[in-house]
């Protein structure tokens, strides 16, 4: 039944999915085996060991890296597996399946994120989320010399996930599914806070993480060869045990009306999201199917609001309301129809609607405190952003022979928004593609797509009111013309050898945009060779070249008086002076090389796997000025370069059918030059008069060699 429902709904709701791949069972593989080993890593001088182990734990020591267990009985199966046992990236799962009756799965997984092992801070965390600094250090002049006593600490976090899922086959056509997932996120991550614009010091902090998300899903599914139906309840509860971050001001240790000794910001609040959904599909005459999906959900949080300021020297300003009262209702629906009235023709149509109805009451303030340091008056009203998106896609495929399929399609996406400069955008998309896959030695795929997005009305007065140029357009909602072309050819002259070549070219223009992103282009080319002379031998090489170009524009100028329309025609205002325009032309070039070789028993009793990947990136940012500029010539930024090599070799020799011994080797090398995130020459910058207090979490190179001796036992 599970298979029936999944296949019917998925295939119908996502028509372009085309030919389905094999089913993906998350359960463990067959066989029983356990892998013991000893591992050690050496690093090049000054290597960033944390970045090497960013998402993994490759510490030296004894390992139980791999465990698999399978037991089968009459109509049932028990599986268990584990990886990296005892290490920070360990995971385990077990499943029991009594076929046709019940399947139960339990999974445990740990995902580490190791930022840095050399971070230093002048702060001490006295309680979760509260950071203090010695009073004597709290001045710009004392900071640079204070790092001699700074504590060095590991900056890391860990995500732990437990999932239990049960599927009851209530009848031949009915399943009941229940799944509960709990995710804990603990540790710390880099964060920052500040006390103002001029003369204040922005401080980087190790924001503590103590978060938990509980996701519950319950579903009732029914299906047979004619159709399928499902109702489901999904709920997600996010809980954060550290909801504010308080830190001492690095520049002052006393509170006055215009300066605070401490800052406090609000961190992620507890939130709930619950959704009810129903879906179904029905087989229709004429080799047709219809499917529908409808869901309704509520996202809410009502956290108590912090006071405007933690600074006791400032007056207490009454909050407009005590809690956030944030509330959004989400309605989604999705309808599709597929039909193939004659074998060589296939139609599909799909309509999708998504409404994010933000019902959070506006939060209107007339007096507030900026950065805990300055009382301000004026008018600010929150903008509970909401939108409704309608999407339609229709495709027709004509396949006159088994070798060729030609597809044409049209799509339209309309989005209506609240609280954005462009209220409504409509994008029309036409596309055509050709597929030729039936010939054994050649497959060709080509897709061309042209899209045109237009928005109206444009509330440029709203831009002016917040000090922006009225001819600015936000690239995600601005007018846009986009062309994309993708081609892929695979040639297989003999069954053991294949060549593949792909190219993707994209161009985005933003007509009507004077300021902001004006165009965005990309070119991607790949070439690969795969050689499989026999089942036990395979080799692969691939090369890739990517180039991304983006042009953006701005104007450096003082604001208009009172930010009003009346001054827009005043040529004496810097704001209106095109000679103050500048552009930034970004070019990002990435080259990739990959090679693999698998020799599985090509040498008797021996398996060898070798792989190597290289990714190099070079990004340039070139500033340009107007021909008659009055702006000082910029000093161009140096390019940002990075290079990541990853190589691995794994050799396993089967002593007998129960024992194998092996060696594995991992080589990683990372090189980086980054003007803003590399070594900046200190943690309190600039040294003469610091405006930034860092922790030393930077991009640093590393070279690492990990060697592993392993014994695998099969039973």
């Amino acid at each position, binding site marked *: 039944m599970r298979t029936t429902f999944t296949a019917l709904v998925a295939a119908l709701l996502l028509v372009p999915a085309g030919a389905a791949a094999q089913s993906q069972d998350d359960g463990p593989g067959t066989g029983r085996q356990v892998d013991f080993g000893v591992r050690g890593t050496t690093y090049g001088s000054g290597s960033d060991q944390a970045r090497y182990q960013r998402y993994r734990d490759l510490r030296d020591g004894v390992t139980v890296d791999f465990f698999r267990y399978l037991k089968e009985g009459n109509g049932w199966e028990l599986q268990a597996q584990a990886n990296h046992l005892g290490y920070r990236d360990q995971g385990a799962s077990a499943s029991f399946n009594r076929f046709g009756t019940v399947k139960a799965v339990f999974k445990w997984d740990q995902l580490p994120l190791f930022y840095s092992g050399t971070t230093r801070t002048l702060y001490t965390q006295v309680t979760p989320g509260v950071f203090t600094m010695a009073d004597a250090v709290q001045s710009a002049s004392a900071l640079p010399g204070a790092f001699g006593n700074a504590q060095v600490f590991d900056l890391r976090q860990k995500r732990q996930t437990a999932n239990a899922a049960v599927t009851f086959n209530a009848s031949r056509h009915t399943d009941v599914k229940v799944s509960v997932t709990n995710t804990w996120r603990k540790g710390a991550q880099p964060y*920052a806070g500040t006390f103002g614009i001029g003369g204040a010091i922005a401080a980087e902090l190790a924001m503590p993480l103590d978060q938990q998300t509980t996701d519950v899903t319950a579903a009732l599914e029914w299906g047979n060869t004619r159709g399928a139906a499902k109702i489901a309840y999904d709920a997600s509860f996010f809980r954060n045990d550290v909801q504010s971050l308080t830190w001492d001001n690095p520049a002052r240790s006393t509170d006055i009306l215009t300066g605070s000794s401490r800052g406090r910001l609000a961190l992620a609040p507890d939130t709930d999201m619950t959704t009810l959904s129903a879906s179904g599909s029905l087989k229709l005459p004429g080799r047709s199917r219809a499917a529908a999906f409808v869901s309704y959900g509520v996202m809410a949080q009502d956290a108590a609001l912090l006071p405007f300021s933690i600074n006791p020297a400032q007056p207490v300003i009454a909050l407009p309301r005590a809690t956030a009262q944030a509330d959004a209702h989400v309605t989604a629906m999705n309808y599709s129809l597929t039909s193939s009235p004659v074998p060589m023709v296939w139609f599909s149509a799909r309509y999708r609607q998504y409404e994010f109805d933000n019902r959070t009451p506006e939060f209107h*303030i007339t007096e507030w405190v900026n950065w805990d340091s300055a009382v301000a008056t004026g008018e600010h009203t929150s903008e509970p952003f909401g939108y409704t998106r309608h999407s339609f896609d229709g495709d027709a495929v004509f396949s006159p022979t088994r070798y060729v399929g030609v597809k044409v399609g049209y799509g339209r996406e309309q989005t209506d928004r609240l609280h954005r400069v462009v209220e409504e955008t409509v994008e029309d998309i036409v596309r055509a593609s050709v597929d030729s896959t039936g010939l054994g030695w050649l497959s060709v795929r080509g897709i061309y797509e042209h899209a045109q997005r237009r928005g109206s009305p444009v509330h440029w007065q709203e831009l002016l009111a917040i000090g*922006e140029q009225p001819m600015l357009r936000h690239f995600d909602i601005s007018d846009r013309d986009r062309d994309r072309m993708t081609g892929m050819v695979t040639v297989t002259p003999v069954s053991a050898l294949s060549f593949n070549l792909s190219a993707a070219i994209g161009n985005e223009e933003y007509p009507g945009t004077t300021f902001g992103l004006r165009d965005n282009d990309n070119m991607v080319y790949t070439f690969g060779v795969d050689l499989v002379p026999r089942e036990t031998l395979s080799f692969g090489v691939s090369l890739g070249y990517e180039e991304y170009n983006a042009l953006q524009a701005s104007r450096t100028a003082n604001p208009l008086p009172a930010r009003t329309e009346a001054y827009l025609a005043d040529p004496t205002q810097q704001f209106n002076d095109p000679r103050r325009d500048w552009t930034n032309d970004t070019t990002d070039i990435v080259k990739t090389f990959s090679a693999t070789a698998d020799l599985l028993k090509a040498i008797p009793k021996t398996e060898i796997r070798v792989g190597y990947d290289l990714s190099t990136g070079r990004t340039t940012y070139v500033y340009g000025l107007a021909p008659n500029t009055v702006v000082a010539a910029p000093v161009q930024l140096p390019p940002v370069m990075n290079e990541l090599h990853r190589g691995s070799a794994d050799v396993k020799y089967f002593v007998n059918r129960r024992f194998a011994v092996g060696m594995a080797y991992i080589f990683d090398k990372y090189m980086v030059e980054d003007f803003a995130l590399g070594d900046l020459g200190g943690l309190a910058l600039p040294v003469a008069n610091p405006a930034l207090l860092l922790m030393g979490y930077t991009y640093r190179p590393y070279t690492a060699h990990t060697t592993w001796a392993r014994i695998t036992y099969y039973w």
Partner: protein
Amino acid sequence: VHAPKSETGALKLASTTATCESCHKQEAMKVKRSGHMPLREGKMDCASCHNSHGSTNVRMLKVGNTVNESCASCHAEKRGPFLWEHAAGRENCASCHDPHGSNNDRMLVARQPMLCQRCHVASRHPATIYDAAQVRSASNRIVGRSCVNCHSQIHGSNHPAGTFFVR
């Protein structure tokens, strides 16, 4: 597949990710960049986010009804709703982030401050040219975390003075 190479799923290649990469070349190369999700480390694969058999979400995303609902299924702390919302982020996480990988910090589609300056050109500091001279003088608007040295609550703020995402 008569001779599957994968441990699960009877795939032609050794893993889900390797199988997907055989056609999705651009995504395959992005995954190999220095900033990436933990696919290469084996803690995720393409099927962590996508359902290759189809889904009710866009782009075959496995969970939710939008890109954002899919992202928030793991990054729930950014789900909100918040008192002060960053509209562009609410509409689509992928306007700023490339989930397949990037050479920019935090998998941004462009580095800061240039990314922020694509939408914010207001007088004074958003419209300043952050050039090598600004780097040399260690301006806190380009070095380190750049714009989010101050606007750290960029995904949304629940602070009453969170208008500009600095609290």
